[in-house]
């Protein structure tokens, strides 16, 4: 192994070794140092990804690269994983979830995401995707005290297996059509390739639609979001969605024009925006509602991807934006949960006054998801609709913006319950612990600061996609 290869691999190694270390320490000194090691590993990865000097291109045989694109997403995944770990630490204690496997699996999931973002060929891409999905099979089912968690895990496993099959078959067909697994070359060659390449793209798109939960492949999302432990859902929403967006951004730009993929992607974007937003309108369960909201939000991302050009930058920006919003929303819910999970929107009544910090964070997240300035949700939506109009997708942009207006209703329902209704019983919900407050504070600050000052992140998104 050359030094170049080693340097390329270091951020991934930190995550993987961190994961193993947490597991092994659990056997030797069972305690609760898993989170600390995990957060340290995440911080190390993020710092390495951001600060390490640029490396020469690793040989293609390695299968991963350390491009600016990979660095950007590695840092993002490491930060989301770290914040999720902080959220999970006290939440797990409250819900009686023991074991080092929890933080170890989160780290392993982050490792999978990092592999996806730095993949140079389709094989590592697939392995990374499977690694992160496997981590979530475990994490979603981790809450053994609640049957719903196990049920969610099973559903996610079945759906994930199906989608993995689609993705694998799609990759196989692309390989067959182009004769190479290297992403850039295979994608570029497939543009000229005939029916087989097209079939490959179709299957790939179908599989990825599952991963990113675009309607009509979204049906698993509400169940998983409702059943899974809330910090896991926060990680799922921010990290896993980000990984899927990164995957799209790896394979779509080399394609040049989006060509025959336009029609199916158009349909997916349209269905996601309408179905997601309409289904969320009357959903009384807050986590299911946020699940449908995530379907809709990914519909906006699909719109950005469809538009190409500036749209890719908008999608990268929105990955980060949605990451911050997802962490803030689910994180706030997680930090409110004691032994019993928080299920209904009604359960939030009056919490804005009894638990002001979490209330503010949740309200900020809701307003950001609704796309109200000056939040990152607005900046992201603006970039998406900007790119869509520029890319000539005016009808879909208008549909999108109308559904966004409708979505304000259900996001406001949360705010209404937080601030405009009286609580039945005061004080039954948790106050935030230090770790949770830190995590929520970072997410909420990111929402506001990136909303007022989005310029640097836009620059970064443009730079990594060059």
């Amino acid at each position, binding site marked *: 192994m050359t030094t170049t290869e080693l340097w390329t691999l270091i951020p991934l190694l930190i995550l993987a070794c961190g994961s193993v270390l947490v597991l092994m320490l659990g056997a030797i000194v069972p305690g609760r140092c898993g989170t600390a090691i995990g957060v340290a590993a995440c911080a190390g990865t993020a710092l390495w990804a951001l600060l390490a000097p640029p490396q020469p291109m690793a040989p293609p045989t390695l299968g991963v690269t350390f491009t600016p694109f990979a660095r950007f997403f590695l840092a993002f995944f490491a930060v989301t994983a770290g914040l999720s770990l902080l959220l999970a630490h006290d939440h797990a204690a409250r819900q009686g979830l023991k074991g080092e496997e929890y933080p170890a699996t989160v780290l392993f999931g982050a490792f999978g995401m990092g592999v996806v973002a730095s993949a140079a060929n389709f094989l590592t891409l697939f392995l990374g995707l499977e690694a992160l999905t496997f981590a979530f099979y475990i994490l979603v089912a981790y809450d053994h005290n609640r049957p719903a968690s196990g049920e969610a895990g099973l559903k996610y496993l079945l759906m994930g297996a199906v989608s993995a099959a689609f993705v694998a078959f799609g990759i196989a067909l692309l390989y067959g059509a182009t004769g190479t697994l290297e992403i850039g070359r295979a994608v570029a060659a497939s543009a000229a390739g005939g029916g087989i390449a097209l079939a490959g793209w179709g299957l790939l798109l179908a599989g990825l639609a599952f991963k990113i939960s675009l309607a009509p492949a979204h049906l698993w999302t509400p169940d998983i979001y409702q059943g899974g432990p809330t910090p896991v859902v926060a990680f799922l929403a921010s990290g896993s969605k980000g990984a899927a967006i990164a995957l799209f951004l790896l394979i779509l730009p080399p394609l040049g024009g989006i060509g025959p993929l336009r029609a199916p992607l158009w349909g997916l974007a349209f269905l996601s925006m309408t179905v997601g937003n309409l289904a969320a309108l009357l959903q009384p369960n807050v986590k299911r509602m946020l699940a449908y909201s995530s379907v809709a939000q990914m519909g906006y991302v699909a719109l950005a991807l469809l538009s190409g050009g500036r749209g890719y930058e908008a999608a990268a920006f929105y990955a980060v934006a949605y990451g911050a919003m997802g962490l803030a929303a689910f994180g706030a819910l997680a930090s409110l949960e004691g032994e019993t999970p928080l299920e209904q929107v009604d359960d939030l009544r009056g919490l804005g006054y009894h638990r002001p910090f979490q209330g503010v964070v949740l309200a900020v997240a809701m307003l950001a998801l609704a796309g109200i*300035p*000056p939040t990152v949700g607005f900046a992201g939506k603006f970039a998406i*609709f*900007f790119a869509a*109009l520029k890319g000539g997708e*005016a009808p879909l942009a208008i549909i999108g913006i*109308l559904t966004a*207006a409708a979505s304000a209703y259900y996001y*406001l329902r949360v705010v209404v319950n937080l601030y*405009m209704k009286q609580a039945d019983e005061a004080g039954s919900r948790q106050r935030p612990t230090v770790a949770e407050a830190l995590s929520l504070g970072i997410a909420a600050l990111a929402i506001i600061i990136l909303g007022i000052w989005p310029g640097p992140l836009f620059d970064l998104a443009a730079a990594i996609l060059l």
Partner: protein
Amino acid sequence: MSQFPLISVMTFLPLLGVVLLFFVPKQSHSAQRGLALLVALATFVVSLPIVTGFQSNAEFQFVEKVPWIAAGPFQMNYHVAIDGISIWLVILTTFIMPIAILSTWTAVENKVKEYMICLLLLEVGMLGAFVSLDLFLFYIFWEVMLIPMYFIIGIWGGKNKIYAAVKFFIYTMVGSLLMLIALVVLYFKGGAGDFSVLRFYDLALDPATQTWLFLAFALAFAIKVPMFPLHTWLPDAHTEAPTAGSVILAAVLLKMGTYGFVRFAMPLFPDATAQFTPLIAVLSVIGIVYAALVAMVQEDVKKLVAYSSVAHLGYVMLGVFALNQQGLSGGMLQMLNHGVSTGALFLIVGFIYERRHTRLITDFGGLAKQMPIFATIFMIVTLSSIGLPGTNGFVGEFLILIGSYESELRWYAVIGTSGVILAAVYMLWMFQRVMFGELNNPKNQTLTDLNAREIVIMLPLLVLIFVMGVYPTPFIDKMSPSLEKLIVHVKSKQTAKAQIPQIPAPQALPAAVLPVEHK
């Protein structure tokens, strides 16, 4: 620009108040009220040099332009300035805020700190929207106004507060999101550059594009005005909002809509303005007459005043779209008048509601005997609202009617005039039922007259009612160069006026919004 950033200081001074409020202990309500009042007064004082330093010409003054977001796909500037169109609206805002804060001195006992924070944030949004010359910045401030108002209605409102707050939010949001799309399209049409509205003024857009963009902008503004038939959120919002909320809503927020027409929709899309003038005039006149008729049968004083707002704003729209000097200055003046008179009316409704906790007309009667000071003030404000000569309402309405009579909107003006009579009917009838007659309700026999605080709140408004009624010249003088420039601009750019304009078929939409390639 090395000079003192007056506008920014004024706009963001309330934000400083918000920060300071965070450090005031939760229980010391009077400290919170005092601090908020102090900040609002300071903002008013800071805003005064804008009037004294304003040169009566058509140029933008006190300009501040700083690059803000110059990255990724777009470029925005923090670009603010004042001209004759915005100057009085800014002053109206800073003037009405201390009054609004004083008005709920005793009415809001719950979550005072949050209430004051909302009010001050609202002031930032309103001032920002009036001074922004960058469309993107304007949009941000426009939306920023929405959230504090939503909380003010939703938390401190009446029985149906949640319904009213959500309705208010959704209505405004639908309109503004379409405006956002139009704004982006406009940016593409303008080629490379920033979002400065001054740059967009010079664009030569083809009439079909103008039609669509105008519709998108006009929808956002028409909802805010509100114009018939988009007015239904207003009575709910007004009725449920606490007094300060109603006052600000009437005095300033509604003006955002009419200001939007004058600043953006009309000069940006001159051809579409010509094309839609008849439609807007029809809706304005319907608004005037319909709202007056509805106001007449209201049982609730606050609802009555809310509907009278719709009628008043109908006049403003009529005057603005007459697009001549009288009509426009009348319209602009009427915006201020409406802010003063209707603001005062809502304060008055607040006074009796605080005493009796009802607003039904039938619960009152004969109050004049019990509350003579209140009766006098109420009478003056009522007369100003119906436009009695000598009060401010008269000047505005008169100019509007003259202006629109001399324009193409002659017959609309004739019908609109009936609204003046109807206004006198519903206002005076309400006044009569509330203030005169037998004082036979025992609960009303113990009512106390206005206290010193309440009189202090009303005094500046009363002074303005007479000053603006007797000597409106200074107000008009500062506005008229800008208005003249606007009229010349819009009329000179109306190219397609000769031919009969046609609304393009829906399939023309993609062509209309296809971006122009950057050169």
